[in-house]
C-alpha cells in the first residue's frame, strides 16, 4: 500500500489555489466526510474516486457552498473560511456540475447556461442582452460538441444532451476550478472523448479540475493526481506516476476486485420478448423489431438520442406506441400502461431515477415493496413485516449502504439509490427486465455485483435487455448487442463480431466488419 500522507499536498511549486483541512460533515446516522484535507494547485486535474456513499458528492457540495461542514477550514487564495456560500463559491471562481441534473426545462439552453449571470444591456432596467447571450452559448456548445442550438428548449433534450448543457454551464463561468461530479454517467463514448479533451484544454489554460467518475479508465487518462475516498476518509493519494486501475480499486474497496464473470456458455432458450414493428413517437417512421431470448443479456447500444430510452419506455407501456405489437412467450400483449407490463413480468429500471425510479421521501422498504403491494398485503391491508423482510433481504444481497430499511431513500448516495431501484424489481422475480443505464453512477465494486446479478438472472432464465452508453460494459456483459442509429436497429452483433469498433460503426450508421462465419458453426 502506498504511503498515505496526513495532507495530500501537491508537490509543485505554485501556491495552492484551494486547500481544505480537517473537514467533517455528518448527517444523522452517518459521517459522510471526516478529517478530510487536500490541496488543489492551479492547472491541476484531480481525480476523485470512491465507492457509492464514500462522500465524494458531499465534499463537492461543501466546495460549492450547498452544504455547510461541521468542522474544518476551507482556504481559498490564502483566505481561510469556515464555510462557503453558493455565492462565495461562485465568486471564488468555483464552477460546478452537480451529480443530479438541475436544468430548467421551461427555459431554453441559452437561458440555462447563463442563469444568474446574464449579459445585460446598458441601462438601469437589467434587460437581458439576448443576442450576446446566444452567441456566447453557441460557442460553448460547439466546444462541448453539442449537436443542438442555443435556443432549443431544454424540454426537448435527452438526458445526455442535458448533461452537455450542464458542462457548458460550468465552462461558461470564468472559473479557476471546475468540479465535475460524474459528468459522464450517461454520456456515450464520443461525447465522453470530447469532455476529456475539454478537461485537457482547461488544464492548459491553468484552470484546475476536480473530476469524479466511476469509470476509472477516464480518470487514468486525464488525472494528474487521484484522491481515493473510503467511508468519508481519505484512503490514499496516487501521484500521476502511480495512477493505475487496480490500485485505485484496491484503495477504494480495500481489496482487489475479482475478475468479471465470464459470459455464459449456456445456449439461450426460447424467445421471451418479441417486439414487432414498434413505432415510437420520436421516430414514427422507423419501425423497430427486436427479440430477446430467455437466459440472454441483450445489450442495446447507440449514440445520444438514438431512441433507446424511447423504445424501452414503449416496451414498458409508459409511452404510447404508434404501431406494432409486443409478444411475451409468443402471446400478444394488451400493453396500455406500465401496470400491464408489470403484470406480464416486464420490468424497467428507468434512466432517470430521481424522477422515475424512486420516491425520495419514502423509506427504502416502502420503495422496494411498492410495485408488489399485493404480495405484501392481506385482504388489501399492508403487511409491514413482510415488506421489511423483503427489504432486508435485498439490502444485504445488494449491499445497500444505509442505517436501516426505514431510512429515507433520498438521503442515500446516488449509487445506493440506484441499488434500491434494482432491488424493487429483483424482489419480484423478473421474467423480462429492461435496464436503462443500470450502472449509471454506480461504483466499480457494485457494478461488478450488478453484472454478476444480471448473469445470475440470465442463468435463471430471465431475459435481460441492457441499454448502456458505457462501451466496456456493453461489450463485457452482453451476449449479443443490438445497436441503434436514429431510431432504427442498424445491426445486431453476435459474440464473435462484438468489438468496440463494430459497435461504433453501427452506431453512426455504417457497416460493421463481420468475421467470416463457418457454415457448420453452432
Amino acid at each position, binding site marked *: 500500500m502506498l504511503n498515505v500522507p496526513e495532507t495530500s499536498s501537491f508537490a509543485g511549486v505554485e501556491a495552492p489555489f484551494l486547500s481544505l483541512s480537517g473537514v*467533517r460533515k*455528518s*448527517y*444523522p*446516522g452517518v459521517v459522510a466526510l471526516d478529517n478530510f484535507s487536500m490541496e488543489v494547485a492551479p492547472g491541476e486535474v484531480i481525480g476523485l474516486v470512491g465507492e457509492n456513499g464514500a462522500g465524494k458528492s458531499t465534499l463537492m457540495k461543501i466546495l460549492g457552498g450547498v452544504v*455547510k*461542514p*461541521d*468542522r474544518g477550514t476551507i482556504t481559498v487564495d490564502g483566505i481561510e473560511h*469556515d*464555510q462557503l456560500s*453558493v455565492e462565495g463559491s461562485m465568486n471564488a471562481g468555483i464552477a460546478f456540475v452537480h451529480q443530479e441534473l438541475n436544468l430548467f426545462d421551461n427555459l431554453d439552453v441559452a437561458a440555462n447556461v447563463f442563469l444568474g449571470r446574464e449579459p445585460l444591456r446598458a441601462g438601469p432596467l437589467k434587460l437581458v442582452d439576448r443576442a450576446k447571450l446566444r452567441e456566447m452559448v453557441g460557442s460553448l456548445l460547439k466546444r462541448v460538441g453539442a449537436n443542438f442550438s442555443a435556443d432549443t428548449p431544454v424540454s426537448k433534450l435527452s438526458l445526455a444532451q442535458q448533461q452537455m448543457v450542464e458542462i457548458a454551464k460550468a465552462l461558461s463561468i470564468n472559473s479557476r476550478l471546475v468540479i465535475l461530479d460524474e459528468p459522464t454517467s450517461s454520456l456515450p463514448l464520443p461525447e465522453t472523448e470530447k469532455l476529456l479533451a475539454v478537461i485537457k484544454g482547461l488544464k492548459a489554460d491553468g484552470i484546475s479540475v476536480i473530476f469524479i467518475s466511476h469509470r476509472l479508465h477516464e480518470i487514468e487518462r486525464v488525472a494528474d493526481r487521484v484522491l481515493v475516498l473510503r467511508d468519508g476518509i481519505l484512503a490514499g493519494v496516487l501521484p500521476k506516476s502511480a495512477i493505475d486501475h487496480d490500485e485505485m480499486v484496491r484503495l477504494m474497496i480495500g481489496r482487489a476486485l475479482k475478475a468479471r464473470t465470464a459470459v455464459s456458455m449456456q445456449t439461450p432458450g426460447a424467445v421471451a420478448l418479441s417486439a414487432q414493428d414498434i413505432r415510437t413517437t420520436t421516430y414514427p417512421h422507423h419501425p423497430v423489431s427486436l427479440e430477446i431470448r430467455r437466459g440472454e443479456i441483450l445489450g442495446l447500444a447507440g449514440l445520444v438520442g438514438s431512441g433507446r430510452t424511447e423504445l424501452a419506455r414503449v416496451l*414498458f407501456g*409508459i409511452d404510447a406506441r404508434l404501431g406494432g405489437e409486443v409478444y411475451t412467450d409468443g402471446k400478444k400483449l394488451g400493453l396500455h*400502461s*406500465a*401496470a400491464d*407490463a*408489470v*403484470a406480464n413480468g416486464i420490468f*424497467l429500471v*428507468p434512466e432517470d431515477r430521481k*424522477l*422515475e*425510479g*424512486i*420516491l*425520495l*421521501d*419514502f423509506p427504502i422498504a*416502502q420503495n422496494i415493496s*411498492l*410495485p408488489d*403491494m*399485493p404480495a405484501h*398485503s392481506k385482504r*388489501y*391491508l*399492508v403487511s409491514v413485516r413482510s415488506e421489511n423482510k423483503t427489504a432486508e433481504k435485498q439490502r444485504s444481497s445488494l449491499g445497500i449502504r444505509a442505517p436501516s430499511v426505514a431510512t429515507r431513500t433520498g438521503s442515500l448516495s446516488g449509487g445506493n439509490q440506484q441499488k434500491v431501484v434494482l432491488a*424493487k424489481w429483483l424482489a419480484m422475480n423478473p421474467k423480462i427486465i429492461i435496464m436503462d443505464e443500470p450502472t449509471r453512477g454506480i461504483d466499480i465494486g457494485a457494478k461488478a455485483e450488478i453484472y454478476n446479478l444480471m448473469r445470475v438472472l440470465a442463468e435463471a432464465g430471465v431475459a435481460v435487455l441492457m441499454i448502456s452508453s458505457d462501451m466496456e460494459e456493453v461489450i463485457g456483459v452482453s451476449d449479443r448487442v443490438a445497436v441503434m442509429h436514429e431510431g432504427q436497429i442498424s445491426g445486431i452483433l453476435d459474440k464473435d463480431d462484438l468489438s468496440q469498433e463494430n459497435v461504433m460503426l453501427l452506431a453512426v450508421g455504417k457497416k460493421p466488419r463481420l468475421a467470416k462465419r463457418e457454415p457448420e458453426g453452432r
Partner: protein
Amino acid sequence: MSKKDIGLLLLILVVGAVVAAINPRFLLPINLANTSNLIGLFGILSIGQAFVIITGGIELSVGSSIALLGVLFIDFIATRGMDWPVAFILILILGGLIGLAHGWLIARLKLQPFVVTLCGLLIYRGVARFYTADGTAGFAFGQNFPTLEFLTAGRTYGVPNSFIALIVIMAIMWVVLHRSVFGRYLYAIGKNEEAARFSGIRTGRIIMAAYVICGVLTALAAIYFAMYTRSISPASHGNFYELYAIAAAVLGGFSLRGGEGSIVGVILGTILLQELQNLVNLLGIPSSLNFSVMGGVILIGVLVDQQWGAFRTRRRLVRAARAEPSTEGQRN
C-alpha cells in the same frame, strides 16, 4: 398520533381551557353537543377533501356541491315525494359521479385539479340557483321525516348522531388511508406520480377513486347540512366551505403538494376551527372579527408548527455534529 397531532391537540385543549375560564358555559353539555354536531358535519367534508389533497390535488367545488346536492335532496323528498332512503342513495351516487367526472378530467385528460374544480365551483353553484330559480329549497311547515331526522340531526344519549357518523367514517377512513394498499398508493402518487406509475401502479384509477371518495363524502355532508339548516338558499349555502375543509386539512398537517397528512390530523384541524367559531360567539367578540380570529389562529398554528419543526431539526443536526454548531441560518 404523530408529534404534530399532539401539538394540535394541546392547542385545542389550551384554547378550550382559556375559553372555559372566561365563560364557563363553554363546557355546558348542550354547547359541547352543538359544537360536536358541527364538527361532525365539517369533519365528514374535510376527510373527503383530505383524500384529494393527499394525491396532490385540490377540490374547490365542495361548497357548491353542498348547495346543489342539498337543494336536490330537499327537493326530492319534500317536493317530489321520493322515499328518503332512495333520495339518500341517489344523492350519494350523484356525489360519486361528480367526483368521478372531476377525477376523469384530472387523471385521464390531465387537466389541473385547481382548474377543474374551480369550474365545478362555478357551474354547480349556478345550476343549483337555476334549479330553484334562485329561490329557497326547504320543507313545508310540519313536514317530518322522523327516521331521517333522527339519523341526521338527532342525538343519542346527548351525543349528536352526526358526530357518531363522523367517528364511524373516521375509523373506516383511517384504515383505508393508513393501513390499506390503496392508502399506500395514494401517498406514493402524492409524493411522485411519475415514479408511482413506473412502479406499475394504475395511478389514474387511484386518483379517480380519491375524487370519488371525496364526492361521496361531500354528498353525505350535503345531506347532513341540509337536514341541519332544513332550508337552502342556493346562492349562499355552503359558500367558502371548501376553504374550511382545506384549512382543516392544512392545519392537520397536510401539504398541498401532496403525500403528507393523517386522518387524525384533519379531524383535529376541524375541531380547532369549530372551537374558534364557538369561541367568537361565546366570548362576545364582534362577529366581524370572526374571520380574523380564524385566520390569525391558523397562521399562528402553522407558524409555530413550522418553526418548532425547524428548531428540532437544527438541534438534531447540531447534536449529530457533536461539535460547536456552525449551522447558521440559511438565507437566499
